[in-house]
């Protein structure tokens, strides 16, 4: 038996190409060449050893790739390309035009800041242009910031940032819900301001839900790590780990909470809680971020909260004639269902009656 053949067999074994007969043959050969045992062992180790995955580099490359796709006008979200901007169908329908429905205002929204130079009291006027992206109810938008970071803006939300974003700082303000996929840059931390919390990140992906009319603000971390500061407790910094969700309840009297009776804010719930993200069966994306993948998803949520999500999703309003139904616990996922289909499915599973008139849904 030639030595050449021995090496052919061994490389076949390591590559997973060898047949059972060839493996047997190799075994016999190894018995005849005990002096090669050490090298064979090492080759096997060497083979099994795969290089460490450089996912960070790949993540960066992916960002650049998405950027190139936008530049080349490749429709990443097919619906944006296929759905007409104005729907001729008068039925209430979920409108889901990424980008198309976005209202990008780069107007002369000038912010004047006046700074006084102590020496000569001369006023220096700082002018900076502000970019504002907002979405209507029932529509969503995907925005690429100047540094390549990507923000998905959920319905009825607004994101603003200065024209000089990324020159020295990366700062945005958010009202509503956004999913952020932020490019790493340790020299320029990315900061989001909302009405009651500030979030500082280095490079990560997370979801922020901060609608002014909601009674709580939610920050869900998908990966990376972020630091959250609560506005009325500036010394209290909270670091979130992946798969954690920080819920900050607005204090009674704060905007967004005025219409709530005090008993609706359960006493046992602390003003700040950290929860785990929830996942639906067979779903790799957290419920909290499912909307960016065109899914209206909820798990063990009160009908009152589900109704809020549906209001934004379908651009309708909900009225609970029967207040008891607000406390139904619901779970479910909708993708392409119309409002009628979604309500019919919920009615069937959770037991309530409803009526749709124009853009108003009444629950009995």
């Amino acid at each position: 038996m030639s030595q050449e053949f021995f090496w052919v067999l061994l490389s076949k074994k390591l590559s997973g190409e060898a047949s059972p007969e060839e493996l047997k043959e190799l075994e016999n050969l190894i018995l005849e060449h005990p002096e090669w045992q050490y090298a064979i062992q090492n080759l096997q180790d060497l083979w099994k050893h795969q290089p460490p995955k450089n996912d960070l580099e790949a993540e960066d490359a992916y960002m650049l790739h998405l950027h190139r796709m936008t530049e080349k006008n490749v429709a990443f979200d097919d619906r944006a390309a296929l759905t007409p901007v104005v729907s001729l169908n008068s039925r209430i329908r979920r409108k889901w035009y990424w980008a198309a429905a976005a209202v990008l205002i780069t107007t002369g929204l000038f912010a004047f800041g006046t700074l006084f130079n102590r020496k000569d009291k001369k006023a220096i006027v700082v002018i900076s242009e502000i970019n504002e992206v907002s979405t209507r109810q029932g529509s969503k938008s995907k925005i690429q910031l100047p540094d390549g970071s990507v923000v998905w803006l959920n319905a009825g939300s607004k994101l603003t940032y200065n024209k000089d974003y990324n020159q020295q700082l990366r700062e945005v303000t958010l009202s509503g819900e956004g999913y952020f996929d932020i490019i790493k840059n340790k020299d320029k931390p990315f900061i989001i301001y909302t009405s009651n919390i500030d979030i500082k990140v280095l490079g990560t992906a997370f979801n922020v839900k901060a609608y002014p009319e909601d009674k709580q603000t939610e920050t869900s971390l998908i990966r990376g790590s972020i630091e959250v500061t609560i506005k009325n407790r500036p010394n209290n910094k909270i670091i979130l780990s992946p798969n954690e969700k920080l819920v900050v309840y607005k204090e009674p009297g704060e905007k967004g909470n005025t219409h709530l009776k005090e008993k609706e804010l359960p006493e046992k719930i602390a003003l700040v809680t950290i929860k785990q993200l929830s996942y639906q069966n067979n779903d790799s994306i957290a419920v909290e971020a499912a909307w960016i993948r065109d899914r209206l998803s909820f798990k063990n949520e009160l009908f009152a909260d589900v109704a809020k999500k549906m209001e934004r999703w379908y651009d309708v309003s909900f009225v609970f004639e029967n207040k008891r139904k607000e406390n139904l616990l619901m779970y479910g996922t909708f993708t392409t269902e119309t409002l009628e289909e979604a309500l019919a499915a919920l009615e069937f599973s959770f037991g309530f009656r409803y009526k749709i008139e124009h853009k108003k849904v009444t629950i009995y």
Partner: protein
Amino acid sequence: MLENDYIRRLLAAIALDNDQAAYKELFILLHGRLKQFAYAMLKSGEEAEELVSDLFIRIWQKKDQLPAIETPLLYFYTAAKNLAITRLNKQKRQASLTVDDYLVHMTSIYFDPEQLMITEEMVRQIKKAVNDLPPRCRLIFKVIKEDGLKYKEAASLLHLSVKTIEAQMAIALRRIAHCMHFEVKPIPQLHFTVKK
């Protein structure tokens, strides 16, 4: 093969559900390897990066056809190769690509002495052995060991016979093993005495 099954599942998710997360996962999974492979042909990091991006743009644009792909890994490498040839033709740099035109960097083949029970010195010798392999042999070793192609796939990708792949793999292994062998049990030096 496990990896092909996994890639097939991701492709199905992209084709059927427009699954952007699956698309990203696939990109992350293959980016490094495909970029290295593209680099071996184009000899430019920037162009290699663009090529991988172009390839993934096509994947998204032609996603209806994805479920029909039977050997996904080979499909990606073949597509990368075709894109590289188009590029080289356009730039009139090269009319065709033979196995000997690939430039496979040593760094793309991986050794970690910490993990292997071998000494730094042995690693140095192994690296040298790999480096001294003929270019075609090194390319084959790389696509089989690091990229996970099957012999048949590598043969199809590089227009070689499976027998050639077998033979080249044997050469690569023998040369690497040689270093290890010497390390543990040095072969006595032969002393020649030259009679005058």
